């Protein structure tokens, strides 16, 4: 890939990049509010033609400007050439997973053992979380790209003393572990190197941090664990012109919770199993990146100021008791409204909307119960004409039990 570049092109590209693009994508292409452009992850496509379209048309709604009216295609192509010249890290990384571990693993050549599974890693990072078994070995083989001459410092951190072997350009690199960490100098030239590594898991741990560092350059992640820990990438859900009702794995909320964002930047969640309002927070709604990247093992993050989440929550007491409810449905026809049934033939709903900086809750019962109370988290403000608050209990007026409304805020 490097040999096709014309140096003059890169110079102009560099100039444009370093006067415009760097503000979002970083001086070293390491990313910022924009994506990292030196790694192997290409969110909008990696072919030069696709990148050119991205540069020309942008993604204005995501903050990426359209540069097609400012620069000629040749100029934008020179930016692409510059970006390609700055690529660093692993590419074309092939992996093998080995489930059948020989009894004696000393001096073993893992590359010669038949693989249980194999393929190419995308993105191209060492990833020991791929196998779903307790004991395994993995091998990795691919290209290591560097945009500058070394020396580089290889940093690794591996809990549980796994057996790791590394070869660069066919030569074994003697890894010098100090307890579970490595920090050792490697003399590597700019260009493409053959990278081979084997990993044998010998304990319950499989997390592996691995990176190359050079003074004055951003860290080059080699493993998925390092990449994820460096990631500044987010995926933020937000309510634009109407409420956004979302079910995801969300930090500090029960598994079946339903979260609701309002354009007023006020957010809440309801636990359908108990009809409790179990969160209130102010700000952009959710960063769902942890829940939609990779296998989605990690919870989405609530953004902004959290007033309460999970416990304590706004709990409903019907006729003086915590009643078992059956959740039925929600409607988004107008404001989000959640419907429930209890005692076989009795119904109620909770309509939720935003009113300024307060959450507007409208409870509707059919038939009207004798009494309704709400248990409240201490830290919330409550405004309502339909009942009385006594410390953490809101008692609905007897005449209002068929329909009552309240405003909740911080």
């Amino acid at each position, binding site marked *: 890939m490097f040999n096709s570049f014309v140096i003059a092109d890169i110079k102009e590209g560099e100039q444009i990049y370093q006067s415009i693009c760097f503000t979002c994508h970083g001086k070293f292409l390491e990313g910022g509010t924009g994506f990292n452009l030196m790694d192997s992850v290409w969110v909008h496509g990696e072919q030069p033609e696709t990148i050119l379209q991205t540069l020309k048309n942008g993604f204005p709604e995501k903050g990426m400007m359209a540069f097609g009216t400012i620069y000629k295609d040749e100029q934008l192509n020179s930016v692409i050439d510059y970006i390609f010249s700055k690529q660093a890290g692993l590419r074309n990384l092939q992996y093998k997973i080995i489930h059948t571990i020989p009894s004696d693993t000393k001096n073993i050549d893992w590359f010669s053992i038949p693989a249980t599974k194999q393929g190419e890693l995308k993105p191209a990072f060492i990833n020991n979380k791929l196998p779903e078994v307790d004991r395994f070995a993995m091998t990795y083989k691919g290209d290591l790209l560097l945009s500058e001459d070394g020396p580089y410092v290889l940093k690794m951190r591996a809990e549980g003393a796994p057996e790791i072997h590394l070869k660069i350009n066919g030569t074994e690199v003697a890894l010098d572990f100090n307890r579970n960490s490595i920090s050792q100098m490697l003399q590597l030239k700019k260009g493409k190197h053959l990278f081979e590594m084997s990993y044998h898991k010998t304990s319950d741990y499989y997390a592996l941090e691995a990176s190359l560092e050079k003074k004055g350059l951003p860290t080059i992640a080699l493993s998925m664990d390092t990449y994820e820990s460096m990631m500044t990438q987010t995926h933020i859900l937000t309510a634009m012109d109407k409420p956004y009702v979302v079910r995801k794995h969300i930090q500090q909320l029960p598994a079946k919770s339903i979260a609701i964002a309002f354009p007023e930047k006020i957010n809440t969640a309801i636990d359908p199993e108990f009809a409790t309002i179990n969160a209130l927070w102010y700000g952009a709604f959710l960063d769902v990146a942890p829940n939609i990247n990779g*296998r989605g093992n990690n919870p989405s993050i609530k953004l902004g100021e959290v007033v309460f989440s999970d416990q304590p929550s706004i709990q409903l007491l019907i006729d003086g008791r915590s009643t078992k409810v059956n959740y039925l449905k929600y409607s988004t026809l107008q404001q989000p409204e959640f419907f429930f049934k209890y005692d076989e033939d009795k119904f109620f709903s909770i309509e939720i909307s935003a009113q300024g900086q307060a959450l507007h809750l409208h409870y509707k019962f059919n038939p009207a119960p004798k009494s309704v109370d709400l248990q409240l988290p201490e830290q919330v403000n409550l405004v309502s004409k339909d009942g009385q608050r006594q410390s953490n209990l809101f008692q609905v007026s007897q005449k209002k039990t068929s329909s009552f409304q309240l405003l909740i805020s911080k």
Partner: protein
Amino acid sequence: MKGSISVVVYILYLSLLTYANPKGYHITTIETPKDTLFHVTGLDISKDSTVYCATRYGDVWTYTDNTWTLFARGLHEPCGLLIDSDGSVVVAQKPELTRLVDHNKDGYADEYILMSSAWEFHNNYHEFNFGVLKDKLGNYIGTLNLAHNDPEALKLSTMVSRGGYRGWAYKVTPQGEYIPFAKGLRSPAGIGFNDVEDIFYTDNQGDYVGTSMLCQIKQDAFYGHPVSLLDAGYNREQIKQMSLETLDQMRTLPVAWIPHQEIANSPGNPEWNNTKGKFGPFEGQFFVGDQTNSNIFRIALQKVGDNYQGVVINFMEGFQCGNIRLKFSPAGELYVGQTGRGWMSKGPALFGLQKVTWDGAQPFEIQDVKLTKDGFDISFTQALDPKTVSNDNLIATQWWYAYHEKYGSPKVDEHPSTITSIQLDQHHKRLHIKMNLTEKQVYCFNFSKFRSQTGEFLVNSKSYYTAVNLIQ
């Protein structure tokens, strides 16, 4: 990398892809909505040919006249979608089975109605809810994945459960009653009906599953993964004490073993070909996609005694991404929903939608393999060149898979089969193989040295027949 592949290499690559697939079948990529994470894990097509996709991101989109429209959003990693007879849409999302209704007919769902959530969901990433079938009685059918890496769950080997019907198949009646009806499922990523509404599911190779498999889901049956027994009256200690022999005796064997890597690593839903010939010569067979291998294979069924047995034959390769959902359109096109996130796929794209169309050209393929009393009947889509048909040119092997807590099984006792004779019928399209037979064997025939009358060779030359039982 980027831009470095020369045009020549690329054309060569394309021609190789074309080469690898049966004549007459073509893959078309459908452009998905711009800037949208479009991992298609739920797929159905209405009678008027509108395509409905549920995405792992949590959206439902409709596609008609080359235009995508957002129909619903905010779902929890849905892994199944069904267009119901009243036009509403049923989605299997992780915490519940949900009906989406567009009351005001503005093209966007405004009601999300709970149909059932009677199982437990603990926010574990692996606790998928796969679906959805609807039978003639109006029951909705789905399957629940086991969990992984949950320290509070019962763990014997790899996949785990805290209970709450993880590892079960379930029905939800029209009245909303939840009926779990079969257990022992591991990672049951796809279900499908055959022509008479028998229910089949595929499971992924792993602990207690020697290789990926297609099973018929029968009432109260157990398919091998013990942690699901937490909801069948056993406690954790009792399950830990159970021997493999005991579990094996309880186990219902698959309709077909799907050889690991040769055919599949992580199969999706079995889609029955009922296109009345619009999709070529493979009517009345299952088509199944594979998420890892990014291929599609076929499974043809045969009833032996009370049970189905099946033959697995590869079909097409070279898809852009992992194939998890298949659905035939009314026009007989096979739509392919794809994802490559988390569990990587050979196809390089991260997500997408493609379709397979047939242009009417006759491919040269193995049509079907049927067990007989003393061997197998094999039919081909075109006449064979008799000069190439001989015992010497036929490579036949057989093996079985072990049942154990280890992750997958190698081929056990793989050895050449003993063929007594082979005989071609008068039309040269059917082959009778006489051979020694043993029950519980996968019989693999490799016809790579056979040629058609016109000199073509088979693109997919291997068949894998799972003979759990023999014909008495």
